[in-house]
């Protein structure tokens, strides 16, 4: 009961004070506020909406020592410019954890309550979101706002907002589409008209869809990451969709989740630093003779790929093999 009360109290605080960082106080706060602004334009470039602060709060649950903060699991880093390294830490508050993001160059960026963590995730909230806002998978945006992103023109300043390192090989640009990210989403942009025609929600800290959950309509297009497309393609029996750290199998008649075919960690990507938790050698058994750790190179597996790591700097230097 005590935890319930604490959780409810924290939720109320988070609703009334959606961002602890004051945009008028210091550079970090200004950057945080700027980072939460939507930059999607409709038609001729008129800005049509601004993201709610709650949305940014919900973008991701940050864990300490996870390496670079552009991991898909740390989706809040999107929209802050390409590939700028930041570090994070979770601080225990009195009632709910505080998440503090620290920019390597500029000091504290954002301080906010963790909406999705806590002892009873989602309790007292609506799927981890404040009452009245939408499901957890869209950054707690009010219903309808997500749909407004579709068909909109992505602002020019998103041209360099690349997909996080770990997902860049999942969604490579091709002749038809560009993939950019921001505000907790990957935007699929149709090259022919520069309009956003697909949204992919980034990780939300280990909150998964459950069996029977209807698949959200705004995300309902074939979005299986590139390396898994040969395994799971839409057919008469099943559809497959990526979201929230997993590839889901959907019943085509109900469009509801009826299985999880793969769990994706989204932790490693070329150019990023090997996170804590990957010190343990994890290369699949059949590839060990080929990719054995040495003093010159480590090898680690993640989400269908084997990566090479510089042991001295812990930088992930190359994608060595795709093994799916």
């Amino acid at each position, binding site marked *: 009961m005590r935890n319930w009360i604490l959780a409810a109290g924290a939720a109320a605080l988070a609703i009334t004070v959606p961002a602890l960082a004051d945009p008028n106080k210091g550079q970090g706060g200004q950057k945080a506020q700027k980072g939460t602004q939507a930059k999607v334009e409709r038609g001729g470039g008129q800005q049509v909406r601004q993201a709610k602060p709650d949305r940014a709060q919900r973008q991701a649950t940050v864990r300490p020592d996870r390496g670079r903060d552009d991991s898909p699991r740390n989706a809040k880093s999107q929209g802050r410019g390409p590939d700028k390294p930041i570090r994070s830490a979770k601080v225990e508050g009195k009632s709910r954890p505080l998440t503090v993001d620290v920019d390597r160059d500029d000091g504290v960026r954002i301080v906010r309550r963790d909406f999705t963590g806590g002892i009873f995730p989602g309790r007292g909230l609506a799927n981890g979101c404040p009452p009245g806002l939408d499901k957890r998978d869209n950054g707690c945006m009010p219903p309808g706002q997500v749909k407004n992103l579709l068909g909109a023109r992505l602002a020019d300043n998103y041209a360099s907002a690349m997909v996080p390192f770990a997902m860049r090989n999942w969604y490579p640009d091709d002749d038809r589409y560009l993939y950019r990210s921001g505000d907790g989403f990957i935007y699929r942009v149709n090259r022919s008209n520069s309009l956003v025609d697909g949204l992919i929600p980034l990780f939300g800290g280990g909150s998964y869809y459950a069996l029977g959950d209807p698949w959200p309509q705004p995300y309902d297009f074939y979005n299986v990451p590139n390396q898994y497309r040969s395994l799971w393609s839409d057919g008469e029996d099943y559809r497959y969709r990526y979201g929230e750290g997993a590839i889901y199998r959907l019943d085509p008649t109900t469009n509801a989740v009826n299985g*999880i075919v793969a*769990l994706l960690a989204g932790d490693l990507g070329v150019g990023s630093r090997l996170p804590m938790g990957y010190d343990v050698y994890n290369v699949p058994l059949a590839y060990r003779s080929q990719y054995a750790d040495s003093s010159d190179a480590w090898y680690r*597996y*993640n989400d269908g790929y084997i990566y090479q790591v510089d042991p001295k700097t812990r930088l992930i230097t190359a994608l060595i093999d795709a093994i799916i």
Partner: protein
Amino acid sequence: MRNRLAYLLALALPLAACDRADRAPGSEASKEAAGDSTIAQGLGSDSARFEAAAKAAGLDTTLAGPGPYTVLVPVDGAFDKLPAGALDTLMKPESRPQLTKVLTNHILSGAILAEDIARAIENGGGKTQLMTVGGGTLSAVKDGDAIIVTDSTGGRARITAPDGKHSNGVVHKIDGVLMPA
């Protein structure tokens, strides 16, 4: 510990048979290295509760898929250590997201053998960390020859049967349930 108990009481898992064998494609090399059985097929009779929970969460297809994953599988007796009713609560349909979160706290990316963990513990000065696919962090230490894994709430489990090798990964049987933060 109080938070851990409270969390456990709020959750739960149903038990049924997990008989799916719809193996997704895997590499020939993987099969040669670890045989043809998948993790889902090879969980064993001492892990019926975990198997049932995985099925309830829809993760039986994951464990039958290409992987590779390393799964820390609590044996049936491990669930007896949970507070009374916790498993039943977790198994309710409305608790499925929590159930999935608990289960994914036992699944790691790639294939990790006990000797890999032991080596990392040694290199780490007596301790190492393991990242779960659910985003959780587990720590591992040695206790004699055994490996002890601790979750972020302080719950501990001992690897009692290491290195079950399958075509899509590795299974280590453990004697406790590892809860997420």
